[in-house]
């Protein structure tokens, strides 16, 4: 039970860190054509 709980903890922490890294440090690749308003569109 101990080891399973440890595994679950590490999975949760890894998921949380991965989520934060993905959310803030990795830019999503756009699959669709970018339309007005994207970062490079110069309108903001």
């Amino acid at each position: 039970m101990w080891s399973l709980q440890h595994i679950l903890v590490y999975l949760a922490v890894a998921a949380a860190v991965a989520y934060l890294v993905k959310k803030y440090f990795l830019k999503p690749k756009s699959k669709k054509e970018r339309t007005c308003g994207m970062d490079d569109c110069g309108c903001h």
Partner: protein
Amino acid sequence: MGKQLKVSLIGNPNTGKTSLFNLLTGLNQQVGNYPGITVEKKEGTCRLPGGGKAHILDLPGTYSLNASSADEQLVVESLLRKEQPDFPDLAVVVADVENLKRNLILFTQIKDLKIPAILVINMADQMERRGISLDVELLEKKLNTRVVLMSARKKTGIDELKKQIEDYQQLPVSPCLSVSELDATYFERLQKAFPEEDLYRLWLCVSQDVALKKIDESLLKANEYSERNTPEIKRLQQKETIARYLYINRFLNNAYQVDRTKATDWRSVLDRILTHRIGGYAIFFLIMLLMFQAIYNWSSIPMDFIDQSFAHLSEWTNNHLPEGPFTSLLAEGILPGIGGVVIFVPQIAFLFLFISLLEESGYMSRIVFLMDRLMRRFGLSGKSVVPLISGTACAIPAVMATRNIENWKERMITILVTPFITCSARLPVYLIIIALVIPDQTFVGFNLQGLTLMGLYVLGFGMAVLSAFVLDKIIKNKAHTTFVVEMPAYKVPMAKNVLYTVLEKTKSFVLVAGKIILAISIVLWFLASNGYSDDFYQAEEIVRAQPENTMLSEQEMQTAVASYQLQHSYIGIIGHAIEPVIRPLGYDWKIGIALVTSFAAREVFVGTLATIYSVGSEEEETIKERMSSDVNIRTGKKLFDFPTGISLLLFYAFALQCMSTLAIVKKETNSWKWPFIQLVLMSGFAYLVALGAYQVLT
């Protein structure tokens, strides 16, 4: 099955476009942002009488196709770029029956782009009360289109509109004006430069205040045409507007008549009262007072319920699940993390309920008008008032409330300064520090502690306004807009629209900010529950072996062990590591840990110190006693003395100690740049002020 008909809803702000969108799409709608910017994108599907479906896009409100802000630019680009997926097969132009002339400017521009267009005249149910008579037939003939009279409030005219949408192919696409008549030489030269292009599309590209990028390649060249932004262009733009008004006046004088003697108009009287230069502010202050009283009072019951429910759930988890780290994570990390998100839901829902009611009733426009002159001196707009006031509850919904501000610069300044406003999360921090360092005495009849607390609120607001003034001088605006506020008719708010707003804002908070807060809670719990040294893992043996702990009860011993472990956890190590940096401010490592953990949320400061001071409970009195008697090892004086207390109060007043605020600013600005600047500036300033206060007072 043929391709889905693409319909764009276009119109001036406050014409009931969104109400019409809701009526057309019902629940078949999606709300998101246009990529890269935070202008809301609403799209949905409408079932047509013949069985077909239409894709409806609700474009941002705009007064004309002369874009001067990001959202207006978006409308212009969506109508110019034929290749893009949002280019409409049909434009449904929504006009307000009371401001028809101004609304028709936009309509005639769209017609001149040769896009099939239907004119929807909303609020037709108000015509009789306003003494308005309309010759629809004449209007249709002169505008060469179909006109639908409707009332989004009373849900009339919607079937007729759907029928007209279905028959859109029968609509003529002949233009209203020929721009070449404005200046034959100029337009001949322009057409020669781009012979393949439609002249009015060319003109719109050339005459914009903003650079259009997402348009056809050939038009892009036109947009970069060397003759852009010359005084001649401005002159021609003015000529175009005058020509349009002349064109509209020619038939509108016959088609649209207002007989004031028939109007039962209480609106003018109400407007005079609500926008009075003194009375208007007093009424606004009273309404805000009532609003926030209601938010606090009504929210307290569901908030207490949520708080207790999560506490019970945590306790149940601890008692019923097998002992171990994952159980601890659930009980002490994840559940409090989720609880920390959900607990704000009632406040957010009530706040947006009130904001939505103010908007729907038409009062918000009066507030904006009233406050604009005052706020503009500081680089803000009248629309900044609501977010700034909302910030006293929580910066998160307040930052979200800035979506009402169309001007990019004003919105950005409001977002950047709102976290200075004293939010409810600062209160527990203020209360405990004030109780420690400010004597419980009266000063000219007022309680000194109460005065200090009020002073901190005033300080927060003053700092927000002052920094807005500074930012106004620094931030360069890419889009210059003139302030135009619509004074819509007073209306009884539509329950459906209010409900949509509340649901959408609450959902957005829980799902987006909530995930971030939850993830941070897990990471913080992990850092506070783990360490690498023997001191951490053998904390119990070490604490029990200490001679001064032999007289402790079992409960006191457990909390002493927890405190010792916390000191040697990763968070504790971080606290010790940052101690040299915070020492000049009068803080020790314990305050350092509280500073680090309270980065998740300011109120965590009290909870963290409660654990560190090993009181085994977060009762304020007990913490105060312990904190009050704590001695700074380095100076030999009380740790929480007057200089340290004032330093801490000032630090919390100015520092951006709130991860969720950063997350929401990132979400709202679609960029890490702004929250980073905000964090560095606010926390840097807080550090300097706290340092100065401590050094001066010692």
